[in-house]
């Protein structure tokens, strides 16, 4: 490559779409060993001061959760702001928010895998880890939301002395199964993807403890081709299974609302609207996490501008879908001719929770519009800010849906205003502490990038470069041996 490399703000620009030329997804002159080194270095070198500061900060925020959740359990849900019409407070808002965040990981690893989007390989591991940690809250929040947390096991169909069973016609029970399955399948998918990379760490391990720890996790993986054959088939099948699963999970979460009769909840648009919103918020969280991580861990050549730009494009598209859903909800409220429904939506935009509604609209509908401009899609500062806006906006979306519909339902005499207490807010913030603690630990102890998958991309890339070189010197002659894998979309 003699030609000068184009750059955007110090980053190599591989975001061009020139017909007939495929931009490299992995930059620098990489080969198998450089990819291994770059990724394993994160785990093998001594943790930096920055990492310790991040861990300390996350742990102290986590402490908030550690204090407030026991306080809640010992005192009762009176410490929350929930009142008579608004029985679903921050716990449910947070639950839906975190499950939504959890959708990006499986979308990236399963759906983009089925569509042969090779750019997923650089980001899927971190996104899947994020999914696992986010979905953990899907267990925490309903668990404390039930009030008497020691009876949370009543959600499961366990034989008991009352010989009663849960009601399978309730969407809340569907949720138990949907979220439980989602967590389990995501965990299996994540772990299975990591087995070969953990084996790499095992084989490079210098001391006994590492060797033992990674050795146990790698389960004796050798990288034999017969193993790879079954492994790849299992991976494909898991991806094919996770794809309908990821779409079903947030649909079922939306049924919690849509199957009820509360105005503002009882709409058929909820399942697709929730799924789009989940993908939207999930990708925003991936961008929020990866922009700093790629700089801290020196992964700029593996997680390139193109990866980030692609994610920003998805954020824009799903943002438009979410905006469309907001619009259609109003249209149907008017067109449906139901007075209560009509009032609910007028009330959302102009009632006592109008402030939350307009925060939601500005963050979710207006802020991603900046991505029509390529300059914004490739600017690290702008994408970081927008991703945070989207996170905020999507949290407020769940707040608006849950709270405003309950606070002002059918009869004005039943109305009230829901105000969160410091316990509500503390638990909301504390959850971020747990999330970042888990993520910080993940960065240090497990392979942050799917090493073996990136190697396959690099091998394809190098082969394409060789072929191009050969083509320019001796037309019509190609080297024998390994065929390049079927050309995937460059993304």
């Amino acid at each position, binding site marked *: 490559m003699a030609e000068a490399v184009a750059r955007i703000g110090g980053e190599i620009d591989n975001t061009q779409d020139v017909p007939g030329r495929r931009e490299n997804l992995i930059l620098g002159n990489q*080969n*198998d*060993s450089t990819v291994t080194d770059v990724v394993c270095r994160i785990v093998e070198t001594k943790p930096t001061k920055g990492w310790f500061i991040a861990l300390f900060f996350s742990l102290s925020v986590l402490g908030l959760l550690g204090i407030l959740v026991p306080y809640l359990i010992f005192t009762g849900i009176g410490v929350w702001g929930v009142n008579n019409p608004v029985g679903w407070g921050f716990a449910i808002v947070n639950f839906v928010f975190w499950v939504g965040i959890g959708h990006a990981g499986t979308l990236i690893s399963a759906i983009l895998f089925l569509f042969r989007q090779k750019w997923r390989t650089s980001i899927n591991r971190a996104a899947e880890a994020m999914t696992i940690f986010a979905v953990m809250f899907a267990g925490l929040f309903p668990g404390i939301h039930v009030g008497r947390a020691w009876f949370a096991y009543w959600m499961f*169909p366990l034989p008991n002395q009352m*010989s009663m*069973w*849960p*009601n*399978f*016609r309730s*969407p809340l*029970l569907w949720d138990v*199964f*949907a979220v*439980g*399955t989602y967590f*389990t*399948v995501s965990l*299996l*998918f994540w772990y299975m993807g990591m*087995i*070969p990379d953990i*084996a*790499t760490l*095992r*084989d*490079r391990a210098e001391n006994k403890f590492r060797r033992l720890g990674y*050795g*146990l996790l790698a*389960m*004796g*993986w*050798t*990288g*034999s*081709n*017969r*193993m*790879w*054959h*079954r*492994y790849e*088939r*299992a991976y494909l*099948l*898991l991806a094919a*299974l*996770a794809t*309908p*699963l990821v779409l*079903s999970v947030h649909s*079922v979460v939306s*049924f919690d609302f849509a199957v009820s009769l509360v105005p503002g909840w009882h709409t058929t648009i909820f399942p697709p609207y929730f799924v789009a919103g989940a993908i939207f918020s999930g990708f925003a969280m991936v961008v929020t996490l990866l922009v700093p991580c790629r700089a801290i861990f020196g992964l700029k050549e593996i997680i390139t501008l193109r990866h980030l730009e692609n994610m920003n494009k998805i954020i824009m598209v799903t943002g438009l879908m979410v905006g469309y859903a907001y619009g259609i909800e109003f249209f149907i409220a008017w067109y449906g001719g139901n007075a209560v429904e009509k009032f609910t939506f007028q009330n959302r935009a102009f009632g006592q929770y109008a402030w939350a509604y307009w925060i939601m609209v500005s963050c979710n509908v207006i802020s991603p519009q900046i991505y029509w401009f390529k300059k914004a899609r490739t600017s690290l500062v702008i994408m970081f800010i927008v991703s945070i806006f989207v996170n905020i906006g999507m949290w407020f979306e769940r707040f608006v849906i849950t709270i405003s519909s309950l606070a002002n339902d059918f009869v004005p005499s039943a109305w009230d205003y829901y105000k969160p207490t410091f316990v509500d807010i503390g638990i909301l913030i504390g959850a971020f502490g747990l999330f970042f603690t888990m993520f910080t630990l993940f960065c240090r102890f497990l392979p942050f990038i799917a090493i*073996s998958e990136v190697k*396959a991309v690099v*091998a394809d890339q190098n082969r394409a470069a060789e072929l191009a070189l050969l083509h320019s010197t001796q037309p019509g002659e190609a080297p024998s*041996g*390994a065929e390049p*894998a*079927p050309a995937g979309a460059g993304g």
Partner: protein
Amino acid sequence: MAQPKGRPVLVLGEFESADSLMVAAEQVRDAGFTHWDCYTPYPIHGLDEKMGVKATALPWFVLGGGLTGCFVGFLMQWFMNAFDYPFMISGKPTWSVPANIPVSFELTILFSAFGAFFGMLAMNGLPRFYRPHFRSERFRRATNDRYFIGIEARDRSFDPAKNQDLLSSLGASHVEVVEE
């Protein structure tokens, strides 16, 4: 484990690139070996054909898992809500398939995923922490940047000296015999 120490169990040939491994794999297959394998840091497409690896039966495990999950889902809901403790809720039938679809669907996916994950582990013989390969220092690079062909002692044509010569002649940059 009763065998005396020093019995050769594996011949390993190390290759520098995926291309040379491909070519060699074809030759080893044609030489009639059955208990041998290639070891690569990432899955190399096209190697299955060169090695003569047949398509795995794994999808059948997944299908079996899925059917089991679906059946278990419907059976559980019928048993709990319509048979063991029929309970009238908002005048709806106690056994109504539409309301039972979400849970059955999720269990179908869950059991299929178990089929895929545990099926893969079982067919690959994982977890298995001891393998003769791990006795070789050089083999540690098999998960990093080197490509290996290994011929196992249970193969009929296993003969350390001859196999080593074969692998060297096929372009292996280094060959070694792993002993028990």
